[in-house]
C-alpha cells in the first residue's frame, strides 16, 4: 500500500501540516479548502471531525467546531467529502483529528474501515487511552493500514515517549507547551528549547512535528529548527473567520508561511 505519510517525510523537509475543521466555514468548504491548501504548498492535511465538547481545544477551534456542527457536518457527510478529496489530492497525507465519542458511536471498526476506504492515512484521537489503543485497537488500525499519531507534551516522561514512539508509524505530535490549541501565552523559550532538544536527543524512530500556538512564519521557521516541521490550526481558522473566499484566504495563509 502507498504509504503517503512515509513518502512525505522521506521526500521533503520542513513539512507544513495544516489543521482545519471539516464543514467550516461552510458545510461544503472541506474539499475546496483542501485543494487550495495543497496547491499553495501544504504538505499534510489534518481534518478536524467536529465535536460538541472539544476538551483539548481553545476558543478558536471550539467556535469552528460548533459552527461546523450547526452547518450539518457529521461523519457520514465527511466520509462522502473525503472520497472526492482523495481523488483531488492523490499524494497528500490526510489525517483525521477528533474526539473518541463520535467515533465510538459510529463504531470503531466501521470507522476505521470507512476511513481507509476513502483514503485517510492516519488518525489523531487525543482522548483515546494508550492502554486501550494498544490492547484493543492497534491490531484494527493495522488491519486497515491506518497510522496512529500520538501527542507528546513537555511533561510526558521519557519511558512513555518511547512507548508512544514504538506504537506509532507516522510521526509524533509535539505539543509546544502547556495549554489547549491556539494557546496564546508566550512560551518560556528556554524551557521549550530544552524540551525539543531532549526529544531530538532520544533518537526516536518516528519523525516529529511541533504544534499548538504556532501562528506565523516566524513560529513555523523556529519549529523547523527543532523538528521535521510544524502543525498550524487555530491561526488558519482565525483567518477563515472573516473571509468571503475561504480557499483564496487559505492559499494566501499558506504562502505567507512557506514562501514569504
Amino acid at each position: 500500500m502507498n504509504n503517503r505519510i512515509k513518502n512525505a517525510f522521506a521526500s521533503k523537509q520542513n513539512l507544513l501540516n495544516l489543521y482545519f475543521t471539516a464543514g467550516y466555514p461552510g458545510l461544503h468548504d472541506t474539499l475546496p479548502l483542501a485543494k487550495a491548501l495543497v496547491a499553495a504548498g501544504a504538505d499534510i492535511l489534518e481534518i478536524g471531525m467536529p465535536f460538541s465538547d472539544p476538551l483539548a481545544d481553545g476558543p478558536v477551534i471550539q467556535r469552528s467546531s460548533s459552527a461546523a456542527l450547526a452547518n450539518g457536518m457529521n461523519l457520514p457527510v465527511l466520509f462522502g467529502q473525503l472520497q472526492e478529496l482523495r481523488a483531488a489530492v492523490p499524494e497528500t497525507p490526510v489525517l483525521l483529528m477528533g474526539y473518541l465519542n463520535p467515533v465510538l458511536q459510529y463504531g470503531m471498526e466501521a470507522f476505521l474501515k470507512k476511513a481507509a476506504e476513502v483514503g485517510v492515512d492516519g488518525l489523531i484521537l487525543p482522548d483515546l487511552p494508550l492502554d486501550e489503543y494498544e490492547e484493543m485497537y492497534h491490531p484494527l488500525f493495522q488491519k486497515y493500514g491506518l497510522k496512529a499519531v500520538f501527542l507528546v507534551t513537555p511533561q510526558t516522561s521519557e519511558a512513555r515517549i518511547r512507548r508512544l514512539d514504538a506504537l506509532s508509524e507516522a510521526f509524533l505530535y509535539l505539543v509546544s507547551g502547556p495549554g489547549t490549541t491556539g494557546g496564546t501565552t508566550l512560551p518560556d523559550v528556554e524551557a521549550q528549547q530544552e524540551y525539543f532538544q531532549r526529544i531530538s536527543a532520544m533518537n526516536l524512530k518516528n519523525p516529529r512535528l511541533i504544534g499548538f500556538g504556532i501562528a506565523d512564519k516566524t513560529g513555523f521557521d523556529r519549529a523547523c529548527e527543532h523538528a521535521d516541521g510544524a502543525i498550524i490550526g487555530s491561526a488558519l481558522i482565525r483567518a477563515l473567520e472573516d473571509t468571503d473566499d475561504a480557499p483564496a484566504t487559505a492559499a494566501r495563509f499558506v504562502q505567507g508561511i512557506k514562501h514569504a
Partner: protein
Amino acid sequence: MTPSYQQPTARGYYGEFGGAFIPEMLYPNVEELRTRYLEILADPDFQIDLQHLLRDYVGRPTPLFEAKRLSERYGTRVFLKREDLCHTGAHKINNTVGQILLAQRLGKKRIIAETGAGQHGVATATVCALMGLPCVVYMGATDIERQAPNVARMRLLGAEVRAVTSGSQTLKDATNEAIRDWIANPVDTHYIIGSVVGPHPYPDLVARLQAVISEEMRTQLLEKTGTELPDFVVACVGGGSNAAGAFYHFLDEPSVRLIAVEAAGHGIHSGHSAATSVLGTPGIIHGSRTLLMQDEHGQITEPYSLSAGLDYPGIGPLHAHLGASGRAEFIAITDDDALKAVSELSRLEGIIPALETAHALAALGQLGAGPNDVVVVNLSGRGDKDLETYLKNMDKII
C-alpha cells in the same frame, strides 16, 4: 464471593463504565493523582487532619432526623440524613475538605473547580480560604444568573468566579473549561472536581470522601431503629456524589434498596430533561465512559432541569453500573413535582430543602414503602440558594 460494587478495577472501571479517556496533556496530572490518592487517603496524618476538619469545621456527624409528619404523610418511617446542616449548606464540602488536604500533600499551589448550583464552588472557595490557596471557579453564565447568592458567597470568600459562555452555559460547559484550565496549568494546579464524574481516579476518590454519609447512617440507624440496615436509601443524582456517599456502605447489602432520583425537567420525553439513565446511551464525557445524553452522531446534547445541580448530561460511572446491573433503581422527577416537595418538607418539617434535594423527596410517594419500612432520604442541601427560584414559582409551590 461476589465482587464489591464499591471498588473500581485498577483502571477505574465499574463493570463496563469508567476509565480515563484523557488527552496526553492531562495524563501526568491524572497519573500523579491515580498513583498517590490511595496512599495519601490511608495515611494516618491525613486521616487525623481530615477527621478533625470534618468534626470541628464541617460539623459532622450530621444528624439523622426521624421526620414524623412526613412519615405519617407517606405511611412509612422516613429519616432525613441532614447534609444540609454541613458548613456551607450541602454535602459538597465533605469532598472539598478531603481534596484540599490531598492537594496540599501533592504540593499544589492553586485550586480550580467547576460548579453548577454553586454549592461545590462555595465549598471549594471555603476550603481554599481556610488553607490560603488561590481559587478559580468556572460556572456557566446561565447558572451564574440562577444561583446569584452562591456567586456572591464565592466572591466574598476570595475566589475568582469565571463565567463560561460556551454551549448551554451550564455545568457541562463549566467542567470543560475547568479541564482546559488544568491542561494549561499542568504542574502547580489541583482540580477539585465536584462529583463522582471525570477520569479515574476521580469517581472513586469523591465516592470515598462522600462515603462518610452512609458510614454515619449505619451507626445512627442502629441507635434509632435497632438495625444498621434501612429498607430504602433515596438520593438525587446530578453527577451522583451525594448518592454515592449515601449508598456507599450499603452497596454490598442487597437487602437495602438504593433509589437514585434524576431530574425529568419538563418530563422525561419532553425534550427538556436531564434523566440520563433513561435518555442516555454509553459514551464518553469528561474523560469517563458512562451513560450520557447524545445524538446519533455522538454529539453531547443539552440537558435541562430547573435545578442547576442536576442539569448535567451524564452520570458518574458507578451509577451507570448500578443501573445496568440492577443494583440501584432510577426514578425521574419533574420540575413541578420537585417544587411541590419543597413546600411539603418546609411545611411538614420546618426544613427548606435545596431544589436538587427536593427531587429525592418527591420520590417518596413512588417507593411503595410500607409502614414498617425504614426509608432514609439523603437531604443533600438546604434551600437558601434557591429562594429566588422558589419565589418565582410560588404558584406551583403552594
